[in-house]
């Protein structure tokens, strides 16, 4: 469904008075998301995960330079036409909702952006919110009056409006209690099981492992490896890269195995 090949992103910045230099942020990243699967991209902060999402959505900052190729459903990825309709984003925090606009209103606007005709927007927004357990009372609130879990569900409702084929979730469990986190992850899994592609971006390997089919490990802008989720078990010997193994072994659940020879 989504194929990213040899994607590199750098930031141009002035150096000295006249010259410019490009600071690399993402180097030669290749990955693919298939229909019906959840691909988790794991990396520490600064590894370039969010940049990957912005590149797919065509929303890189103006001073970013990009090279490489991205294809969606077999055709070159045309982000401005896909955004909100065929590719949807679930952002990482409540700060991505406009603080001055009531939550329900923002969902209605999103419905318009997803291509719904004007008379259908309000009912579609109400239905989407209801699907995630949010009623009229929640819709009338401003974002700062919502809990973290409610805000995340509102953003999931926005992503569900357009019946997008590819869903990109940025840190979907950030700041959520276990119950709400499980609810969000369950929904993402259900979307994949319904035949859509889901790209989960996270720093938390343990949280997304139960949901992911495959896991891509990103470190300092470079892809270490992409492994099936099943490879993360035992002492991690099924993993190819030492970094992925170290990440796995560092999890408390695995028991802090001492890193063996690097």
């Amino acid at each position, binding site marked *: 469904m989504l194929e990213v090949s040899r994607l590199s992103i750098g930031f141009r910045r002035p150096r000295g008075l006249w010259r410019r230099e490009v600071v690399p942020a993402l180097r030669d990243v290749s990955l693919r998301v298939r229909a019906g699967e959840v691909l988790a991209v794991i990396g520490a902060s600064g590894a370039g995960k969010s940049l990957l999402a*912005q590149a797919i*959505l065509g*929303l890189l900052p103006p001073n970013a330079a990009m090279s490489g190729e991205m294809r969606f459903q077999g055709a070159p990825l045309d982000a401005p036409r896909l*955004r*909100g*309709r065929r590719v*949807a*984003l679930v*952002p990482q*925090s409540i*700060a*991505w*909702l*406009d*603080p*001055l*606009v009531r939550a329900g209103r923002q969902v209605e*606007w*999103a419905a318009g*952006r*997803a*291509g719904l005709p004007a008379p259908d927007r309000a009912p579609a927004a109400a239905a989407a919110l209801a699907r995630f357990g949010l009623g009229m009372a929640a819709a009338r609130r*401003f974002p*700062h009056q919502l809990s973290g879990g409610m805000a995340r569900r509102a953003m999931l409702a*926005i992503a569900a409006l*357009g019946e997008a084929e590819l869903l990109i979730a940025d840190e979907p469990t950030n700041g959520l209690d276990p119950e709400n986190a499980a609810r969000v992850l369950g929904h993402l899994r259900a979307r994949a099981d319904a035949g859509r592609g889901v790209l989960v971006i996270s720093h938390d390997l343990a949280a997304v492992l139960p949901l992911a089919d495959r896991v891509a490990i990103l470190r300092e802008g470079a892809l270490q490896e992409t492994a099936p989720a099943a490879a993360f078990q035992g002492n991690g010997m099924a993993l190819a890269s030492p970094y992925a193994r170290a990440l796995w072994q560092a999890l408390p659940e695995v028991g802090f195995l001492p890193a063996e020879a690097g």
Partner: protein
Amino acid sequence: MPVSAAGAAPPVLPPLLAFLLRRLLRLALLLLCVAALAFALARAAPVDPVEAFLGPAAAQVGPEQRAAIAARWGFDQPAPAQFLHWLGNALRGDLGESSIFAAPVTQVIGERFAASLALMLPAWLLGGALGFGLGLLAGMREGGWLDRAIRLYAYLLAALPGFWLAMLLLIVFAVWLGWVPVCCAAPPGLLPEQVSLAQRLAHLALPVAALSVLGVGPVALHTRVKAAEAMRADFALYAMAQGAGRAEVALRHAARHAALPALAILFAGMGELFGGSVVAEQVFAWPGLGRAAVEAGLRADVPLLLGIALATALFVGCGNLLADLLAQAVDPRQRGRA
């Protein structure tokens, strides 16, 4: 002490009412300070009120008569006593008699203020709307050519002296092109009821244009900064990820976020607007409050001068109060905070 009394306001009051009460008390205190200061300045000015009252007739009046007039007006009393006397009258709504208009000060201010308002209100609305629109356009495409052009325009306007711009407009549109009349609020020689609406509007056009153009600069620059900031915010990125274009993000999100500072600037700028109207009324010979202030100053009409100082302070204070009330209405996060 009125301030401590407001601070100890019982919490049973709704927040908005408590806020209003506190602000109104503060406004009253401000007016008292302005009154005292203006009175002190008028007393310190090298102006002999008796001389100013007599005008050219001063030469025919002897010293005894002058002393009699001064005593009749209470000039033989110490300044604080005079101030309290004036303040007492002012509280009862009597601001004295204007010597140059030969009418009660309250009446002169009322008439003149209405004329000024006819000039200032359209200029204020026009300048605000234009400034907001330009600022939003510039902020929508920060760093683009349109942004640069609008910024240059705004800086230029902010740097231009108002009277110079007013005269330039007069030369071009009234003298060269002859589109609009050169001066005044109505054609000379006509009674107020003989002036048609079209004539009124024609006389209004140029002063309003000059005054509103002056208000555009600051509003545009403040709107631009806030709009550009909103366009870079996460919620703008999210809106675009949902498929919104830049124009939609600007109109729905950035405009909302920029409205608050723009309104604050607009209302807080009512003082500047008044200052600008003094100049504009002078250049266009508009019979408003600003022109009356200049005449009162030049011809030593102390009661009128004090009255205008009070009226202006009240006007500006109300503007600031309105700005704060609107801020609460626009931003849900500020509601309930005083």
